[in-house]
């Protein structure tokens, strides 16, 4: 059935098969559930943010430099991921793979600085069991970091498939879905940046 459909030649490849369209729509529904998941972690964190027991205050250990490096790495990766999809829609496989590879590199850079930061916090006496506030912090930010890690593996595997099979309605829908996932992780980070880091530093210094 799907093969007999007529298409506007301008329709992006990922929307040309029924399964591609349904998968993309389904992924948007999944993102709604992910928003609810992260909301519960944000709620727990924000309720417990002052419960520091005998450990350091959150804002005491947050550093602007490390925060900005992580934020810009992830923001830029979201941009390059958008460029990758832009190239995909121009049927440019090489451009797609190049920009996605840059995206993955930036994602790895983000993870590197995040892990460095976690190690720094642990070194300063704030680990996941130090206080309710730090438990909330590590679970929320760690869940985001785990999503980024998963995203790196997922995007890598989809790219291998694109390299092998080329751009088809099936592979392009997969690339588009991974791009939605990647941008979504940036959206979550914006709120971590604001609700965890900025608020933590304002409450500590202000």
């Amino acid at each position, binding site marked *: 059935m799907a093969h007999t459909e007529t*298409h*506007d030649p*301008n*329709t*992006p490849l990922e*929307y040309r098969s029924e399964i*591609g*369209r349904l998968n993309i*729509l389904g992924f*948007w*529904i999944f*993102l*709604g*559930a992910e*928003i*609810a998941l*992260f*909301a*519960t972690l*944000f*709620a*727990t964190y*924000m*309720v417990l943010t*002052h*419960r*520091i*027991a005998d450990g350091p205050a959150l804002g005491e250990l947050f550093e*602007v430099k490390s925060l*900005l490096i992580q*934020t*810009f790495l992830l*923001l*830029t990766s*979201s*941009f390059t*991921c*958008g*460029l990758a999809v*832009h190239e995909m*829609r*121009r049927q440019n496989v090489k451009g797609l793979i190049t920009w996605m590879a840059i995206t993955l590199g930036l994602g790895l850079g983000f993870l590197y600085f995040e892990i460095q930061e976690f190690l720094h916090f642990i070194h300063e006496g704030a680990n996941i069991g130090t206080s309710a506030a730090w438990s909330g912090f590590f679970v929320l930010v760690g869940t985001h970091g785990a999503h980024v890690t998963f995203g790196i593996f997922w995007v890598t595997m989809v790219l291998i498939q694109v390299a092998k099979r080329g751009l088809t309605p099936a592979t392009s829908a997969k690339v588009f879905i991974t*791009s*939605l996932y990647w*941008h*979504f992780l*940036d*959206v979550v980070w*914006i*709120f971590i*940046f*604001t*609700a965890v880091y*900025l*608020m933590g*530093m*304002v*409450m500590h*210094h*202000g």
Partner: protein
Amino acid sequence: MANKTAVNEHHGFPWKHLIGFVLSIVLTLFALWVALGTDLSLTWILIIIFGFAFLQAALQLLMFMHVTENSTKSNLTSRVQIGNILFAAFVAIVIVIGSVWVMTAGHAKHDKHDEPKTENQENHGEHESH
């Protein structure tokens, strides 16, 4: 079929992405400045930085994620996508603000049997937020 935005978009320079990127950097730095470089009250700082966060989330959805794009001739898919995300955002806001309100608004009316230690932490928390 994709709507007109998608059709026009995949030719030429990706202006939409570039504008989205520049705006998100500007919003990030401005939020940082408002939070750490101004003498505004805590309430105003929170209103402004969270306003920027939601604005930046909207930018990602519109400029990068093509949330308004349709995969069928009708506008059904974009309506489902936008409706679902808005509903999820509503759920998120209720969960977060609701939880924070429930767990902090009753602080002054504590059970008298609470140990003094908890009270101290309470005061510490209050102090921190000013």
